[in-house]
């Protein structure tokens, strides 16, 4: 879950996520940092897995399954993603 201590994710991260989510956005809702994967986008477990796999390919990272229960919104995902990318590149 995003907290006040996290740095805000970069616009590039959001743009990349919006693009990847677009392919799975069956509800057609407008994507914002607050959009929720389950409630707003109706992502079920299968879609989540396919979406995560695309993110992994795009950023050349592995997203541990353990993180997923803590992710509700696109911002949550962006924060987690930037942490993983930083750790990989660091």
């Amino acid at each position: 879950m995003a907290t006040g201590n996290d740095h805000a994710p970069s616009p590039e991260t959001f743009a990349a996520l919006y693009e990847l989510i677009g392919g799975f956005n069956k509800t057609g809702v407008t994507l914002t940092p607050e959009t929720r994967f389950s409630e707003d986008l109706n992502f079920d477990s299968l879609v989540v897995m396919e979406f995560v796999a695309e993110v992994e390919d795009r950023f050349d990272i592995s997203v541990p399954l353990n993180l997923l229960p803590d992710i509700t919104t696109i911002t949550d995902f962006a924060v987690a993603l930037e942490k993983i990318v930083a750790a990989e590149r660091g």
Partner: protein
Amino acid sequence: MADLLDRFAPLMSQRDAFFGDGGADPFSVRMTEILSQTEAMIGNRRTILAGTNNYLGLTFAPEALEAAHAALDAGGTGTTGSRVANGTYAGHTDLEEALKDFFGTDHAMVFSTGFLANAGILSTLMGQGDYILMDADCHASIYDGVRASAAEIIRFKHNDPADLDKRLARLANKPGNKLIVIEGIYSVLGNKARLKEIVAVKKKYENVYLLSDEAHSVGVLGKYGRGLPEQEGCEEDVDFIVGTFSKSVGTVGGFCVSNHPQFPILRLVCRPYVFTASLPPSVVASARVNLGLIKNGGALRTRLMRNAQKLHAGLTGLGLKVASDVSPVVAVVAPDPQTAVAFWRGLLEAGVYVNLMLPPATPHGYALLRASLCAAHTEEQLDEIIGVFADVATSMGLIEPQRKRAATG
């Protein structure tokens, strides 16, 4: 305030959309009499069972029945205790010795179900700072097991050694052990792991272990029925084998075998082992006898594969889409879930039981009619199964009438 179970509302409405009309559904199939390994009464209808995972048909093996009867009379209906309390009888350790002998391993541990074997081993084997790399199409028991582990869980693309390689490379400089988790035969579609290639990837890196769930391949693959590692000649490269007694072994229970020198410590820390009542003596006795029958079951395996070829060829020949290569699991892909439900009901009404499998429990979001074969299926039964598939598929307009086989009576 929302009701306790409101979060299942989408699932409930999906269920009602498929089954709310009061027709047959998989949750209410009740077998009133088991006629043989391959036939049962469902309602008032004599039904061919083609979805039981009873690959070798050992559920009525006379030797196993006799041993089970004797153990039941001698040891009672249950142990009423866990393996670490009062639930270890001589039969349980005899069965573990039989498993060690069967697989040629130093250690064997028996669990009360296959699900618990996966849940127990996967939740305890790896700890904080370790990594589990699991095939994306692994069984629910593996998902639940790794979820209870303190390790980081990473999925790799189904049966994709290159994707596994990529992910191991990312972890190469990180401390911690890595465990690759695969299945010998994947249960839903019946396809085999690309084991040799996965072993080759494993060997490129340090501190990597391999666990294979051989639930659907023990008894089925290998000259002596030890599963895919035996068939592929790489048993020494598989560090842990998990399996079940509820498929080819014809009863219930699970196990893990390994040569890891410290394996026995798992008996103290594996909670699904420590805190579950052990298997009843009759079950243990029949499992032990059937392991021996599996080891010498070359003729059964030959019959099973011949049956698999016949059903695969028969259903493919009708023009149905079969998702797998020739294997004891033959999964027919329906165009959508609603059609799959109607197809499944049509088969059941005509006296053929298969498994109905719907997304999200299936790979690729497939809606499937999953048949599994038994060595005890006769030619006539297979002809009837193929004929019923033809009739139902034709009446639903899924295949062209001219492709329908001649009626088999």
